[in-house]
């Protein structure tokens, strides 16, 4: 069986909706059976090794932390601060939405969760203030990508575990790209708001109200400080930080804001167990696939293919973005990272691109993938939340998607925005 047939089978199974782990598992078993290159026991071993990696344990807790934030009333208060800070300028509520996504992203690691959390609060408010409903929904769908760019971030955890890159470094390197994306989105929002006159009338900033909202949100504002401060002060590892963010969120939600019913705590964890199993199971076959591709020299084939086109790092970055853009139209975060990132990282390293920088390149490409149809999770969430059609939301989101692409290029070409931050703190 040739490499082509194996990939064909992989894609057919994926396309037919077979779980990704199984879609990978079946072709690699056939490959091993046919080539005798290694043993089935070798594949089986990964079923134990991969799901017992300690760093991967961060994932389940960051997933629940997002839920806790929401039900505990923390996200609401974060948006309140942004609102009082900037709500009255041209396109103010749009900026509030973007800032809200950044704040929420500093606690949540998920992009669709960010869309849901901030969208629920901000879309009605924006529409009430005169924003076009498609514009408001499209903006939030794109800004939700900040959920995975601002640390903590699921894709960065997955990338770090898959490629054995430091997760703390990846998180630290995420701040630069987040800032770039934030600035780009705010600028586009400003241009459009100016043209269509989006401005909340008669609202002025009352300094007292601002202080009050900050005071009201102080415990929510502390949450990112605790998570990121915990990691960077050395008090805890990323995995432990994820746990602490849950404990802290629970404490504030139950005892301080008193919006979280104690009886809802266990169900919140219970609801995520099958989801976690469904996600992490994929790692075992994917890990085995990486090793078997190495056995067969496929990794080298891919590497040589790219290096045959160019060895210029800028060209390679553009090629990667182009590839990830096309893949990202059809595939979600997880498979792109576990299947593609180890193979592509080999190419990137060969032209001197740092693994941490490359992690952010991949993550930005995934932020785009969340809003490029036909498979676009952020658009699904936005659409099911508002009942608006995906097509219309996508059309309204176009300028912002273009902005994300611009941000990709800016970040991709300037490692100072990613690894530069690490170097700055290191010296």
């Amino acid at each position, binding site marked *: 069986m040739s490499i082509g047939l194996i990939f064909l089978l992989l894609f057919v199974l994926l396309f037919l909706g077979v779980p990704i782990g199984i879609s990978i598992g079946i072709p690699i078993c056939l490959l091993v059976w046919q080539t005798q290159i290694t043993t089935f026991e*070798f594949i089986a071993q990964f079923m134990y090794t991969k799901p017992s990696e300690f760093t991967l344990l961060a994932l389940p807790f960051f997933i629940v932390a997002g839920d806790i934030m929401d039900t505990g009333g923390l996200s609401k208060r974060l948006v309140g601060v942004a609102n009082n800070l900037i709500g009255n300028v041209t396109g103010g509520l749009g900026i509030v939405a973007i800032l809200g996504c950044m704040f929420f992203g500093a606690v949540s690691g998920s992009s669709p969760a960010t869309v849901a959390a901030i969208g629920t609060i901000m879309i009605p408010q924006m529409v009430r203030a005169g924003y076009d409903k498609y514009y408001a929904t499209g903006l939030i769908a794109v800004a939700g990508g900040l959920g995975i760019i601002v640390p903590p971030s699921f894709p960065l955890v997955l990338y770090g575990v898959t490629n054995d890159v430091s997760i703390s*470094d990846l998180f630290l390197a995420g701040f630069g790209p987040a800032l770039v994306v934030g600035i780009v989105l705010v600028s586009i929002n400003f241009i459009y708001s100016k043209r269509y006159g989006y401005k909340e009338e008669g609202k002025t900033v009352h300094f007292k109200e601002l202080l009050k909202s900050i005071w009201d949100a102080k415990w929510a504002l502390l949450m990112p400080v605790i998570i990121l401060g915990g990691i960077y002060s050395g008090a805890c590892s990323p995995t432990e930080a994820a746990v602490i963010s849950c404990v802290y969120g629970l404490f504030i939600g139950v005892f301080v804001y008193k919006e979280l019913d104690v009886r809802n705590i266990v169900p919140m964890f219970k609801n995520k167990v099958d989801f976690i199993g469904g996600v992490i199971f994929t790692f075992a076959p994917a890990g085995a696939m990486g090793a078997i591709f190495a056995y067969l020299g496929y990794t080298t084939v891919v590497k040589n293919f790219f290096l045959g086109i160019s060895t210029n790092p800028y060209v390679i970055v553009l090629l990667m973005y182009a590839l990830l853009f096309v893949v990202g139209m059809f595939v979600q975060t997880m498979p792109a990272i576990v299947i593609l990132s180890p193979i592509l990282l080999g190419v990137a*390293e060969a032209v001197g691109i740092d693994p941490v920088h490359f992690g952010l390149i991949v993550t930005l490409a995934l932020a785009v993938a969340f809003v490029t149809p036909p498979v676009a999770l952020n658009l699904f969430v936005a659409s099911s939340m508002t009942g608006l059609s995906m097509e219309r939301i996508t059309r309204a989101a176009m300028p912002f998607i273009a902005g994300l692409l611009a941000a990709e290029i800016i970040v991709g070409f300037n490692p100072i925005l990613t690894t530069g931050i690490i170097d700055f703190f290191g010296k």
Partner: protein
Amino acid sequence: GLGSAPSETQNSDNNESNASSSSSTEVSQTEEVRVGLDKNVYEIPQYTQQEGVRIARISTSLSAADYGVTPSGVLFKTMVDEIEARSGGKIVLQIYPANQLASGADQIISSLASGAFEISELSAGSWGDYTTAFAPLNIPFLYKNIDVVHAIIDGEIGDEMVQQVREDCNVVPIGFMELGMRQMTNSSREIHAPADLSDLKIRVQSDPIQIAAFEALGGSCVSVPFSELFTALQQKLCEAQENPIHNIVSKKFYEVQPYLTVSEHSPTESILVLSGVYWETLSDEEKTWFEEAGKMATDASRVACQLQTETLLNQVEDYGITVTTLTPEEKQVFVDQVMPVWDMAEEIMGQEKWNELLKAVDKAETQLGL
């Protein structure tokens, strides 16, 4: 620019046996050894299936660029060349670097048992889950220097290790990969006595004896995966660590740990093993080839290690960090304080073997005039 960013941490490395990366210059004592910089400068030979040629696959944590350069790279290059020469090209060794096939004891042992690959390498500290064979190599402050370690490995105790691991794990050791004695680094002071360690959070390998030893010295032990160690040191999640000089340089620990103590507190050896199943398929003559090649490779890695250790120690001093060497008297204080931990080793190894080891160490010290 983009391309100038030096790549780090890509070396997926659980057992830490091969953290060092390429040196782009020929190793000599006068020239700087550049580790962790240029990638893929040396190509590992790639073999394709040919009529009448058998391929034996080696899974290792070695970084591709280290092939023929670092002590581990020298060991593997010697193995590859020797087996090819002795077999007249009828057996070739194919190296799969960077743990791309397997890492950790579970994965390596089960893969060797099933025949997923034929040869692998696992550091002495990682065998504990399956056998006590290599316990003698994991006892801190037992050996005065690397020569004593060599005497033990090459002597009767070494033969016993080989015998025991063959029985316990069905693998056949043919060589010991030398990675140098372990040294300590820390962020705040020169270390002369155990008291200097007392308030430091020190990262040690997750091995019960080693944890107990550093706790006995007054340090507080932290468990950090090797891939996270640089960041953990940078952010003071831990303030001290211990590794051979090759790792300290290649992982740039010296950038965040201004004090290095030449403590030589324990050896770092990785055991080169053949699958027992594969071993049985070899003829007696072929077995001899592997044994001889293994011996030569071990020696070659020792020579390379000794040469590079001296160079690298001078080099880190040039980078501006403070290097202190424990005097024999100072080291004795450490030895006295970890004594209680030796009881633990005695318990693990059994009294008879433990006494035998102590006797052998004494004998080696006398012979070496220590």
